[in-house]
Structure formats: C-alpha cells, structure tokens
C-alpha cells in the first residue's frame, strides 16, 4: 500500500514531552546566537528535574535558564558566558554554591566525546589535553599508555538522550539550513538519540531540493521539527535577526543577586510562545 512520507512537525509542547527527568539533554547554538530558546522555555514549563545538561562549546541563555529553573543536576559546558553582556548569573552561583555538579571539560574533550558517540565508538583519543590541569579535575577522562609507550587521553562517548537545536530554515522532514554557522549543531544532531529542531521559517521540500548544498543538517539526523518564529529570541538567529540586548539584559538583571527571578519566570518563561511573541512584539516586530 502506498504511504505518504512522514512529516516530523510537532508543537513546542509535544516536542519537549519526549524529555524525561534525569535525561542527558544537549543544547546547540553559540553564545548569544542560534540558541533553542523557545524549546528550552517550553521544557522549563514542564516539571522535570535532574537533567544532565551539556551544550556546544560556547553557550549562555539555555544553560543559565535551565539551571535557574532548578532542573539541572549535572552540567558539562566549557564556556558559559553572555560575552560582552556579562557572566552567566545562575550558572556562576550554582557552581560557586555547589548546587549543580559541574563536570569540567573543554572543546576537545566535549567534542571528542560527542564524536565518539556519533561514530559509535566507546571513546575518542585526545592528545592536546595531556598534562593539563583539566585532567586533575575531570576523572571522566583517563590517561592510558599505548603498546609503544605513548600516553593518550581517552574521552568516553557522550551520547545525549535528546538534543535541542535552533535553525533559520527547515522543511517538515528536518532538512535544516543554518544561515550563519553550523558550529557544533550538526555534531549534536549526529550524536544524540532524539533530535528536536526549532526553525524560524518552515520551507518546502522543493525549496530545500533547489539548493541541497545549503542543507547544513540533513533531515535523517532529525526526529522532530517545530516551527517557532523567533525561536531563538532573546538570542539572535544568524541571517534572520540579531540578539535582543535589552531582553538579554532584562534576563541578566532578573537572574542576578537581588533581581526579581520569580517575576521573570512567571511573565517570560511560564507563558506560551504565542503570548511570548505578543509580549515582545516591539523587539520581534
């Protein structure tokens, strides 16, 4: 019997329902750009906790927000910063007070772990970290000696249960275009069990086929597609909109000591995406 190709489209709420307490969640993006912010806020509206959270090597809002919501037990993220806007307040406080377990890592170790998972290998060999202070603080990496006596560092495979990504264009089958940099996002798609992509714009499969070399993440790496206009906001989305610095500053003030975090959560996080867009109509036009 002839069957239609399966669409991967879902609502934000249905998409994030596949994340469970205790899961390893990985979030894509780079610093204040391409963050899967709408997906992260939708997840924050669910009452799960105990997440193991990892992120591409440069992160900010998703990591800081999920920690602030008390949903994260363990975090692996080598560079969490809002860059010129400031340090990440919830991340910083939670690590200083020991409220989350931080697994120290850097780019080669994190990427080595993801690459091993993507290739189905038990571990990656990373040479650059031999002798660094990182090894003293990261018992998950181990040093081994090869038969010829050479010392190598083994990074065990890191396989997220779920990856959240945000892209600028995508079709209903998950063929995605990153209009700026794909950075770590394709790798995060390859190494995870379930991959959920939000897109600013849903485009047709015909449009995707008109320029296959523009597809930065092929659809067969993707499980669920969510159409979410301004889905990276308050972060930027390369080629579509720049970061909203005023909204990010509002976030940082709320998350900082003495800030009104509860008000931020009720007025910004605990509202659905349509309401969020109306509330930010001035910024997102």
């Amino acid at each position, binding site marked *: 019997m002839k069957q239609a190709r399966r669409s991967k489209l879902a609502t934000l709420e249905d998409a994030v329902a596949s994340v469970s307490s205790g899961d390893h969640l990985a979030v894509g993006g780079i610093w204040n750009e391409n963050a899967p912010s709408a997906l992260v806020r939708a997840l924050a509206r669910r009452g799960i906790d105990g997440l193991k959270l990892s992120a591409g090597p*440069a992160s900010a809002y998703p990591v800081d927000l999920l920690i602030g919501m008390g949903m994260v037990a363990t975090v692996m993220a080598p*560079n969490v910063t809002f860059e010129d806007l400031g340090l990440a307040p919830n991340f910083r406080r939670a690590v200083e007070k020991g409220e989350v377990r931080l697994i120290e890592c850097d780019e080669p170790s994190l990427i080595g772990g993801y690459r091993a998972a993507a290739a189905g290998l038990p571990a990656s060999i990373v040479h650059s970290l031999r002798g660094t202070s990182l090894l003293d603080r990261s018992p998950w990496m181990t040093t081994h000696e090869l038969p010829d006596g050479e010392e190598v560092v083994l990074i065990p495979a890191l396989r997220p249960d779920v990856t959240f990504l945000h892209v600028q264009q995508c079709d209903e089958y998950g063929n995605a275009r990153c209009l700026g*940099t794909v950075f770590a996002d394709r790798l995060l798609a390859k190494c995870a069990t379930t991959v959920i992509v939000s897109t600013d714009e849903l485009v047709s499969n015909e449009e995707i086929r008109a320029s296959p070399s523009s597809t930065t993440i092929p659809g067969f790496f993707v499980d669920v597609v969510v159409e979410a206009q301004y889905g990276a906001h308050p972060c930027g989305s390369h080629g579509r909109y720049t970061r909203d610095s005023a909204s990010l500053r509002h976030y940082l003030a709320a998350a900082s000591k003495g800030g009104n975090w509860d008000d931020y959560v009720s007025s910004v996080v605990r509202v659905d995406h349509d309401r969020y867009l109306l509330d930010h109509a001035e910024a997102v036009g």
Partner: protein
Amino acid sequence: MSATEASPLERAAIVLSALLNDDETFIVGGASPVPLAAALLAQKFHAPNLVLLTGSGAVNPRPTEIPRSGGSGNLLHSAEAIIDIDDIYDLTESGAIDAICLGGLQVDRFGNFNLTAVGSYEAPRLRGPGMANIGLTMTATRLLLFSPVHSAKTLVERVDYATGYGSRLPSGERVPHRTGGGPEFLLTPDAYFEFTGPDGEAELVAISEETTIAAVTERTGWQVADAAPDRFPPVDDEQLQFVRSIDAAGILA
C-alpha cells in the same frame, strides 16, 4: 579625539597587529574586539596572507564593524568560508593553529591564566566562564596573551587556578607534554612583557607613551625587574584611521 590621540585599546590593537606574522593562521575567541581589530589591521597593512579564524568558524571575515560578540553574524556574513566544530577540533589536535590570543580573570608572571575560579577551586569567590579550548593552549605554535586591564588584581604573582599554562606551571615546574610553543608575550594597554626570564618569567620590554615605569610596577602583581624598557612605537595615523573605520560603535574608543 584627534588622530594623534589613540585610545589605550586602539593603541593596543595597533601594537598587537605588528606582532602577527604574514602566512600565520590566527584564531580569536569570543568577545575579543582588540585581537580581532589587530588581525584585520595586520591583513590590511603587513600580513595580507594571514589567515584569520574566529571561534564561530568564520574564515577571513571582513566585518564593516568589529562586533563585541564572537558569535556575531557580522563575522560570518562577511567571511570567505565557514568551518565547523569538527574542523576546529582537528586543527587543535594536529597543532595546525599558528597563533591564538587569550586573556584571563588573572594572568601570572609565567603567563598562566585563569578563566575558571578566583579564590579556592572548591568554593570560589568567582566562578569564571571557563576556557573554551584548553587543548589549543598546548598545541598552538604561539600563545599570545592580551589583557585589556592592567591592574595588580589581574596581573598576579600566582594565579588561583591555572586554566591554561604559561611558560612554567604556577609552581615553577616545567609544563609536561606541550607540543606548541607556549606563551610568547603578554600585552596590556600599558605594557609589553616577553617570557624570556631565566625561568621563563615575564620581562618588561616596552611601555606605553602614556605611562611610567613606576606606574606599571605598581599595577603589576609580580616584582618587575629593574629594566629600561622601550616605548611603544608611535601610532601610525593611517592605521588608526583604519581601526576607526571598522569601529563606528567606538568599542575600542
């Protein structure tokens, strides 16, 4: 501000630019407007074949304006190619990066730098952002240190935590397993040090026209040896005009 009065950060970008070589592959990280401006200056004036990579993967960007953020689309949309994280991983492991410019919450006399924790590691007074790529500090041919702040709080005798290693460990012992060249110099808006001391410690080589040896000594957390440092070379007007032409927002002003 007239052309003859470069700001401290504009001057630092021009000094740093002269320290970048033609045909080098140079990578800048996040929130690095000074190293970025230095690389664009170098390409424009004396190093047209320098390959500039950004942390976001932009190759040889020509931004009309230098951004505050390393992830900015300004860098990506003006690049001639974009590489991804797998490329950066391979370049890190293979040691193919010639030069990287870094700074820290603290930098010590050996060039150890701290982006991890101020105070104790277990209960820090300040947890820093962490270092995106520690591996690169071990494999890059040249490690260039730049601190936009020259104060005794930043330039310390010994870092609380060595996220990346200098010419020696904070204890003074040799750095094991390094395949790259380690730190070559530390530049601040006020001073230029090279790690040429008998034990690899920083030696003062030059200071800005705007400061004095006494002021530099006072605002440096380690003992600055008696020296007769040179002055930074005078700012070239044409170079300063170029920096300002890509800095309408006055990030370096």
